[in-house]
C-alpha cells in the first residue's frame, strides 16, 4: 500500500505550475489536498509519472465573497470554507454540504476545488455546484475558460478538465430572494460517503407560490443527477405543493447501481424519501427567507 514512484514538482508560481503541467501533459496529475489522490496512489489505482503539487502557489487559497456568489480558490480547504461566516451568509448550502464531507481531520486538508476535480458521483460538492448552476475556472498557459457545472461532470471520476489544465477556482452563485436549500443524506457512519443523498433548491414568488424546485442526487447515477420537479410540485403555495409527487418524479428518474453496501432498489427508495424531506426543508427555508 505504497504509492508508485513519480517525479515530484513543487512550483512556486501559477505560471510555473501551468508550464510544468503543459510540459508533462497526460502523464501529470495535480496534487491539492491529496485526500482522494493519495489513497488512489496508495491503492495503486493511479500511477501518474509526474505530480504537480500546487500547495506552494500564492493566492490560490482566497475566498472571494460577493453578493452574487462565492468564488473559492483551488487551495481553499474544506474546513476553511466551512468555518467562513461570510461564505455561509451568501451561500449557506456550502457549509451544510461540507459538514457531510468526510471527517473533520480530512476536511483540514481536502480542498473544495479538488473535490470538484475528482468528480466522484458519491461526493457532496459536485451536487452542490450542479444544483446551484456554478462553474469551474480552468487555466493553461495563456488561456482561461469557465466551464458550467452542467458540462463539467462528464462521468464517474471524469470531468471536463483536460490534461495540462489546472482548475484555479470554482464559483458558487448566491440564491435569488425567496429561495431555500437543504441537504439530506444517509451514510453508514457520519463522515462516510452517502449511500444516497439529495440537495434541494426551492424558489417562491411574492405570494409564496412555488416558481421553481429542483434536486441534485448523490450516489444515484454516474454524475450529479439534476431533476427539475417544478411541474410535479405544482404552482401552489409552498405548504400545499405536492412534494410527494415531486419525490416520485425523482424516484422514477434516478438510475442507482448496487454495491456491497446497498441494493439499487434500496438506493432508489432512499432517493424518494430524502427528496421529499429535502424539498420540504428547502421550501420552509424559502418561505421564511
Amino acid at each position, binding site marked *: 500500500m*505504497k*504509492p508508485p*514512484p513519480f*517525479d515530484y514538482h513543487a512550483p512556486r508560481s501559477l505560471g510555473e505550475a501551468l508550464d510544468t503541467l503543459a510540459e508533462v501533459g497526460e502523464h501529470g496529475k495535480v496534487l491539492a489536498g491529496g485526500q482522494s489522490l*493519495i489513497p488512489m496512489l496508495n491503492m495503486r489505482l493511479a500511477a501518474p509519472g509526474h505530480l504537480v*503539487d500546487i500547495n506552494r502557489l500564492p493566492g490560490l487559497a482566497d475566498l472571494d465573497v460577493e453578493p452574487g456568489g462565492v468564488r473559492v480558490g483551488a487551495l481553499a480547504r474544506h474546513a476553511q470554507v466551512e468555518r467562513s461566516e461570510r461564505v455561509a451568509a451568501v451561500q449557506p448550502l456550502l457549509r451544510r454540504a461540507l459538514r457531510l464531507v468526510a471527517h473533520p481531520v480530512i476536511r*483540514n486538508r481536502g480542498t473544495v476545488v479538488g473535490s470538484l476535480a475528482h468528480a466522484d458521483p458519491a461526493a457532496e460538492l459536485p451536487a452542490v455546484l450542479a444544483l446551484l448552476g456554478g462553474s469551474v475556472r480552468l487555466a493553461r498557459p495563456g488561456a482561461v475558460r469557465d466551464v458550467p457545472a452542467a458540462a463539467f461532470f462528464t462521468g464517474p471520476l471524469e470531468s471536463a478538465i483536460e490534461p495540462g489544465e489546472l482548475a484555479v477556482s470554482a464559483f458558487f452563485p448566491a440564491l435569488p430572494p425567496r429561495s431555500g436549500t437543504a441537504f439530506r443524506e444517509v451514510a453508514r457512519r457520519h463522515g462516510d460517503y452517502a449511500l444516497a443523498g439529495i440537495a434541494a433548491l426551492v424558489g417562491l414568488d411574492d405570494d409564496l407560490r412555488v416558481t421553481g424546485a429542483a434536486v441534485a442526487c448523490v450516489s444515484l447515477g454516474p454524475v450529479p443527477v439534476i431533476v427539475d420537479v417544478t411541474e410535479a410540485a405544482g404552482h401552489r403555495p409552498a405548504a400545499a405543493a405536492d412534494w410527494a409527487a415531486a419525490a416520485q418524479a425523482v424516484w422514477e428518474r434516478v438510475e442507482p447501481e448496487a454495491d456491497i453496501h446497498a441494493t439499487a432498489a434500496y438506493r432508489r427508495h432512499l432517493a424518494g424519501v430524502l427528496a421529499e424531506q429535502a424539498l420540504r426543508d428547502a421550501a420552509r427555508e424559502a418561505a421564511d427567507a
Partner: protein
Amino acid sequence: MHEITLTVNGVVQQVAVPGRRLLSDCLRHDLGLTGTHVGCEHGVCGCCTVLLDGEPVRSCLVFAVGADGHEITTVEGLAAPDGTLSPVQRAFAECHGLQCGFCTPGFLCTVTALLRQNPAPTEEEVLEGVSGNLCRCTGYQNIVKSVHRAAEIMAEDR
C-alpha cells in the same frame, strides 16, 4: 531524492526522501518515531493522525516532501519534556480510554487538537470530533469519557 527539513516535536530534522515517501513512513522509518501508527493507509482509520502546524491531518495522506519546512507534532511530542503526561494522555489513562493501544496515538493527537479548538465540547461535538478514528477494542464509551475528562483536567489546570 529530496532534501527536506521538518521540525518534529520541536527538533529540527533534516532528511532525504523520495517523492513518494508518505509522511507516516518518514516519521517511522527515517526518523525512528514509531509512535505514529499505520493501519489502513487510505485515510479511513485515523491511526496515523499527527499535527501539522497544529492542525490534525492523516500522515498517510501527506507526502513527506510536501511537509518540507513545516512543524509536526507526533504522539511522542504530546508529553512535557520532563515526561509529565499531557491532560489528554492522563485522561485516557484514568478513564481506560484504550485497550490494545494501537489506535491511541491517533486519538491522542485528534483529541488534543479538538480540545484546543473547543475546550468544552458537548457530547455531540465529541462524537463528531472522534468520528474519523477507528478503535477495534474499546467500544468508544471510555474514549468519549476520556475526552470529557481531559476537558475537565485542562479547565482545572487553567
